[in-house]
């Protein structure tokens, strides 16, 4: 039976302008454009990935949302009606990619940053030093020294620390969810910018062996590609408990994406589903997490910091405290707007809490317990711009994690069809003819440009704040003010409302 679902988009081709070069046909990976004497779009298949429009030399293609109106109904929105139609036709769980697009409040956009005027001076970031260097890892509460007068040596031995030249790290995205070329671009950019990329849970492809000092290797419930060599060839090891887009849900890389290369990297046979169980079956309680953390530390001879990644959920502060006490060197918190290659829509759109509130709660909790120094805090889950980074660091984060933003830098148009494997930009696909569209060198250049630009912007803000080291912003909530937030939200964020002075 033909679907009753209307097309999502209309593709309009201006046949006056069209020179019939067929580039649009070749570029459309969703089979939404055919050529029969002229370019004929199949609106039903269009996902608005913009590939055709971008490559049309005549600018002859326009993509619009299908203006087909439904009878007005705030409650029964067109999206809800379409979802019901879809499920009535299929009986399936609705699967979706990328982050939560729903209009929940974005707290970043309700926080404003301070600046110096007269009583303390701003600093010129173009001509004076402006330090962004950040070290990830557990810090002792204090340092002890030996010796006296001029001949003093450090007695305290610090836990392993990983240096970041910029407090922005690429998020965990597995080889499988994204292409090898995307992984290569991320690794090259991480090396050049002095930051890190993250394998995600799909193992480390042998082509990235030269970048291991810039790579976070992940251990997830599926343990794909996890060996002692994998753990030791890394900048740090991350245990993935949860993901912001799908807290409490496992992963599922369909067998058709498991080709020869992915099979080798994940160490599973070609064509089998790569299923990640919802929990780690060796972790049913916090003491079990501690057991795994120390299994990894023993395996790496205590030379690698161990991070634990969790989704931001209601009780995140207590959970994070438990993670720190379990021995983690880094806590990575992923907010409910974080992206994914594929997740059930019900989970992506309705589970978890915003990263802004989670971060504030965790930083507060760790300070109240006097253990904030024992772990670095990384946050992600829709860090969209450098201003978000500045605000996150002022709330207390050590560094931010960017996934979707890095994909957009490489060409992603956020069409949310990652799970189809048809990504027209060569990012979320394993089809060789599509993967080839992403040149790793160019991808790396674009990622470096993005990070450089954000780095300069952060330096501009530090200068206007009159500080020349990122650690003087870190946790300095005094430099933030809320606008349009109620008292309870302000209290959770630990900031004052705009208009209130010191």
């Amino acid at each position, binding site marked *: 039976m033909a679907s009753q679902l209307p097309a999502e988009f209309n593709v309009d081709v201006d046949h006056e302008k069209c020179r019939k070069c067929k580039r649009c046909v070749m570029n459309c990976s969703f089979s939404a454009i055919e050529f029969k004497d002229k370019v004929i779009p199949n609106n039903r298949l269009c996902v608005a990935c913009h590939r055709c429009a971008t490559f049309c030399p005549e600018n002859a293609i326009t993509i619009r949302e299908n203006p087909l109106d439904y009878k007005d109904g705030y409650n029964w929105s067109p999206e809800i009606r379409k979802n019901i139609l879809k499920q009535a036709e299929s009986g399936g769980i609705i699967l979706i990619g990328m982050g939560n697009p729903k209009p929940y409040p974005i707290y970043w956009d309700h926080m404003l940053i301070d600046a*110096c005027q*007269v*009583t*303390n*001076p701003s*600093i010129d970031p173009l001509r*004076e*030093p402006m*330090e962004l*260097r950040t*070290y990830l*890892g557990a*810090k*002792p*509460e*204090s*340092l*002890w*020294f030996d010796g006296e007068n001029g001949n*003093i*040596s*450090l007695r*305290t031995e*610090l836990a392993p*620390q990983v240096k970041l030249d910029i407090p922005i790290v690429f998020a965990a995205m597995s080889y499988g969810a994204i292409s090898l070329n995307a992984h290569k671009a991320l690794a090259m950019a991480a090396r050049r910018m002095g930051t890190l990329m993250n394998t995600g849970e799909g193992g480390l492809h042998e082509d990235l062996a030269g970048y291991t000092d810039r790579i976070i290797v992940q251990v997830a419930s599926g343990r794909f590609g996890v060996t002692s060599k994998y753990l030791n060839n890394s900048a740090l090891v991350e245990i993935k408990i949860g993901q912001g887009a799908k807290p409490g849900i496992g992963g599922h890389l369909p067998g058709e994406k498991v080709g020869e290369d992915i099979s080798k990297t994940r160490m599973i046979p070609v064509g089998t589903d790569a299923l990640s169980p919802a929990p780690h079956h060796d972790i049913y309680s916090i003491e079990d997490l501690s057991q795994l953390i120390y299994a990894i530390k023993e395996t790496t001879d205590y030379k690698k910091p161990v991070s634990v990644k969790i989704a931001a959920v209601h009780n995140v502060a207590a959970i994070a405290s438990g993670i720190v006490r379990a021995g983690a060197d880094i806590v990575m918190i992923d907010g409910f707007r974080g992206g994914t290659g594929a997740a059930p829509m019900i989970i992506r759109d309705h589970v978890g809490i915003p990263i802004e509130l989670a971060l504030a709660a965790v930083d507060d909790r760790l*300070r109240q317990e*006097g253990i*904030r*120094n024992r772990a670095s805090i990384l946050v992600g889950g829709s860090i969209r711009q450098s201003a978000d980074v500045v605000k996150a660091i*002022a709330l207390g984060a050590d560094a931010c994690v960017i996934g979707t933003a890095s994909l957009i830098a490489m060409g992603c148009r956020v069409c949310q069809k990652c799970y189809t494997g048809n990504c027209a930009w060569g990012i979320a696909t394993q089809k060789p003819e599509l993967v080839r569209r992403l040149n790793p060198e160019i991808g790396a250049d674009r990622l470096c440009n993005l990070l450089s630009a954000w780095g300069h912007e952060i330096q501009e803000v530090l200068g206007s*704040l*009159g*500080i*020349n*080291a990122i*650690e*003087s*912003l*870190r*946790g*300095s*909530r*005094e*430099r933030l003010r809320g606008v349009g937030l109620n008292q309870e939200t302000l209290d959770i964020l630990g900031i004052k409302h705009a208009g209130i*002075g*010191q």
Partner: protein
Amino acid sequence: MKCDGIPSGCAISGMMSENGRRIDGTEIIRSIACMHDRSNGLGGGFAAYGIYPKRKDMYAFHMMFDNAGAKEATEEFFKDYFNVDKDEVIPTQKGYGISNPPILWRYFLEVPENKLEFLSERDYVTKTVMKINSEIEGSFVASSGKNMGAFKGVGYPEDIGRFYKLEEYSAYIWTAHGRFPTNTPGWWGGAHPFTLLDWSVVHNGEISSYGINKRYLEMFGYKLELRTDTEVIAYLFDLLVRRHKLPVDKAILALASPFWKDIDRMEPEQQKIATAIRQVYGSSLLNGPFSVIIGHSRGMIGLNDRIKLRPMTAARKDDMLYMASEESAIREIAQDLDSVWSPRAGTAVIGMVRAEVE
């Protein structure tokens, strides 16, 4: 009335005798008066070390009370927490344009043995200071160290000095402050120096990293009630030097850290130390323009920020060490100096009195 902290300009001056010679307060008043135009009459103050030799082993609490009720409540509190050896009015004289002073009283206190089961004596005193300032309405501890005291108020510093009759005190270390706040709080407690135990801080500039310095200290139980960045400096010294036992020069590395570009060029051992300090003590970095003089019973430390946005001159003559915002303020009280220099950014001038000085 306690009020919000206010950004301020300022003048600072300090002098000490390494031999422990006690000098009366007239010179330090002349020195700070020389920089009159750096202040605006809304705050001045002094710290003096070695002024109570007869009771040198007792905690000398200089108190400011808004009213008799606050004094009564505080005295009840003292009875519970200390043995009070003596209490008396802090002598003042009228005139010099000083108006509306609070009740100024001092107490010489000893800590009863039985209070120290789980706490060191100084932690105990620190806690009581925090408690009075945050819990007793209208009561404020201006200073709480042994054999030292802070004398401060609203007015030009030279007037405050005469008001307190500082010519009648002899000290081996004097520091002074003239204040230029950018609004009018009219609160005596808000003047410098800020103190805790025998730490005193006079400060010119504004700490732009106040927000995180404060949250860092709160993690260790400090209560920052005054909302002023100067308070932060006193507490950071207390935390790093007294509680964490960092050598003074290492504490300085934490508060005014070298830049990474310079750390990266250091010799391996120095690099290791400087890196570890920034990694562990990043939240205590004082960022923004400042020059400060920190006094304590064994000496005086001058420090300015790591790109030197506020002025500081130091000088020596015989056993005397001087520091001030302006060289003229030193020349005013000491001629024929042996040496005069401008300390480099982020480099401390550390003066210590000789071991035998009491």
